[in-house]
């Protein structure tokens, strides 16, 4: 986890400093960046592991606008939620940004503590996301550890066949099927076929890895 949990990107130094001071007063450590490229350069370090953080970004910036910065961030597969700050007349831009996956936007002038609250929510959400990602990662690893026969049995199981039928289909004894089944449950860390289906269903829903 990076030390800065909040990244502030704004080309106006006053805003930057003010927000930093605000987050600092609420006990959050914030890092500020004067422009999109500066920020991208800092977080785009290949060695850096994505931690739990939130990006607060002005939507109108020079030379790289907030939206463009956001696109590049997405290209880097950054999981951080992005919160846009919009001026008068930029609301439609911000809405489209939200549709494209940004976390939220706040229109200036905003209640400063409301901003902090939203950032907190984003942090919680980001944390949950991180956990979910971890689970998914583990499940994927477990799936990869299954043997070929176990994959076959798993596919049959997911179709809801009984052990006897699976044995018939695969041309093995029922006892062997039970053995494989126990192995699969053990490897994926589930206790029943229902839980197994639930887990795998969630995995498929989250974009199939």
């Amino acid at each position, binding site marked *: 986890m990076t030390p800065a949990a909040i990244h502030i990107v704004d080309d106006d130094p*006053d805003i930057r*400093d*003010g927000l930093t001071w*605000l987050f600092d*007063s609420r006990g959050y450590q914030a890092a500020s960046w004067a422009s999109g490229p500066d920020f991208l350069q800092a977080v785009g370090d290949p060695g850096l592991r994505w931690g739990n953080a939130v990006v607060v970004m002005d939507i109108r910036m020079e030379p790289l606008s907030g939206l463009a910065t956001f696109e590049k961030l997405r290209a880097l597969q950054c999981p951080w939620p992005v919160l846009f700050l919009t001026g008068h007349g930029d609301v439609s831009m911000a809405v489209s940004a939200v549709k494209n996956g940004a976390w939220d936007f706040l229109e200036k*002038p905003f209640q400063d503590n409301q901003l902090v609250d939203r950032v907190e929510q984003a942090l919680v959400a980001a944390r949950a996301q991180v956990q979910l990602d971890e689970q998914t990662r583990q499940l994927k690893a477990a799936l990869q550890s299954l043997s070929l026969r176990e994959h076959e049995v798993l596919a049959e199981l997911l179709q809801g066949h009984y052990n006897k039928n699976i044995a018939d289909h695969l041309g093995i004894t029922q006892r062997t099927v039970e053995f494989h089944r126990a192995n699969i449950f053990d490897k994926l860390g589930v206790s029943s076929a229902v839980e197994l289906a639930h887990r795998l269903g969630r995995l498929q829903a989250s974009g199939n890895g």
Partner: protein
Amino acid sequence: MDFALLQQQGLPHPSLRSRRTLWLLLGLLLLVVASVVALVLYLQRFEQTEEERRRVADGQWLEHSTRFHFSRLEEDLLAQARQAVAAPPASAAAAPWQGGQLWSEPGAVLWHGWHPVGLRRPSEDLPPEWQQRIAAHPANADMLASTGDIAVGLRRPAYGGPMLLADGRPGDVVWLAVPFFERGEYLGVYVAALALDTCVQGLVPTWLRQQHTVRLVSDGGGAVPFAGDAAPYLAPMNLPGTDLFIEMTALSSHPALVPRLFLLVAILFLLGMLGALWALRRDMGKRQRVQAMLQTEVALRAAMENSVNVGLLARSDQGLILYANEAFGRIAGCDATRLAGCQAPLPDWPAELTPAHPAATAAAPPSEVEAVFRHADGQNIDVLIHQAPLTSATGQQLGWISSVLDISERKRSQRLAALQQHRLEASGRLVAMGEVASTLAHELNQPLGALSSFANGLLNRLHSHSITLPEAQPVVERMARLAERAGSIIQRVNAFARRRELSRQVLDATAFVAQVTASYQDTPGVCVSSPDGSAPLWVLADRLLLEHVVANLAGNALDWAGRGTTGTPQVHMGVSMDVERQEVVIHVADNGPGVPDDQREHIFNAFFSTKDGGMGMGLAICRSIVEAHHGRIELGRDPELGGARFAVCLPRHTPTTTP
């Protein structure tokens, strides 16, 4: 005006009508001529017949008269014979005797004598002169003898002759023998020699002789009394024993002058009447044409009057309405036909229509007056009134004619347009205000947002008691600066919003620029040039505003001069004269990067700025000011320095008096 086209439709088949009339007239004329000819012919025939009849009557009368007179003569001779028998006279010729006309006619009875029975033949008893005359022709004696014989034989008077002359031609002497019987006994014959010519001349009365030549002819030789007009009438004398006729020849056929004259006069009258008829017809045609033309003109005028929207009102000097057309009636809201004869102006009419109004009585040609007219229904109508004097043919002014044009619609549309324009401008201003507000919001958001962040952060700290005073001081100072920044924005907006009235004065541009740029003189790289001639370049300008323009441009130039690639910042300013356009040009040039082409269009727009923290008001205000001075501001690239070059072109002022 040519009404031929209109008239052709106005007259119903004029050619057919006139042709029919022409035929009728022609027929009438023919009838008249025929009747005249017939009348003449009939008159001629009648006259001829009458003449003939009269001639015959005259002839017959003459015949009878002759017969009567000769019978009388015979009676006379018989009486002579009786006398002779009673007392045989010694001289028969000397006996006094009152006889008939022929007997008493001198020269008619040449000789007479009684020959009793037993005497010698009468021819032997004659005086010697008669003897000679009888002897002149051998036939004479026989004729005399046979006459006596016939008379005796037939026992009635008998004639013989005429006596032939020596050359054999018959003379005019005829013998008359009257036998005398007494109680059936022949006693003798009384013989007389008659000069027939004289007899006839004596018998013919004067009136007959005036018209006819009466001549004695012997033996008409098959005389045909009615042989022809000119043929003489032969009246037989009926003297037994002779073959003599009285020839009557009309002296000259005197036609009856009076009836002819009457006829002539009648024909003349008739001709005159025909001529008058013809003239009348021609006059009628002319009248009809004129009437048709008049009708056409009247129709045209009525159509014109009804078609125009301009109300026409004619009135006398005394204010009596002579005429008002329908359009006027519509404008006034009353029946136009009833207006005529009323006294003008009626109540509610604009004063401009009264004869006493100066606009109405102005001798000058048609004056235009706008007025408000009150319609009968109480509605006000804007009208445009033209007045012109109404003069008679003799040039005497009878009154005034006014044309009243209803311009309320025009006025309404004008008002509407003005309102529209006003609204448009208002909405334009609103849009501009919206833009200003939007820009202002953006400009103000930044410092205010930061200020808010600092303040909230500070508050958070204060709440948690995690701040010391020394820690708070720089934050508060920062907040103060931010508030100042926001304040400066408001100030700029105020400066723009405050519209100054121009207070123009005549300025010498050269001296003015030198004065304004005096503060920059010490800045390195700034060079102020002045024109060669020392003649002042006058412009009419608001000193303060123009100063703002020059200062703004100079400030811009100084800002950008340093950002160029050519090193040390350089700014050139100066005044020059554009002789061709008569403009004074103040230019400010720098060696900065210049204005990119894609921004040239927008650089003068309000709220467009490429400067950090710029509101984009500077150049917009500059342009407004220059345009308010009827000048213009031009942007170019300076050929010398390579950067932007702004030129303020102001119209040159030529003062009449040097200030």
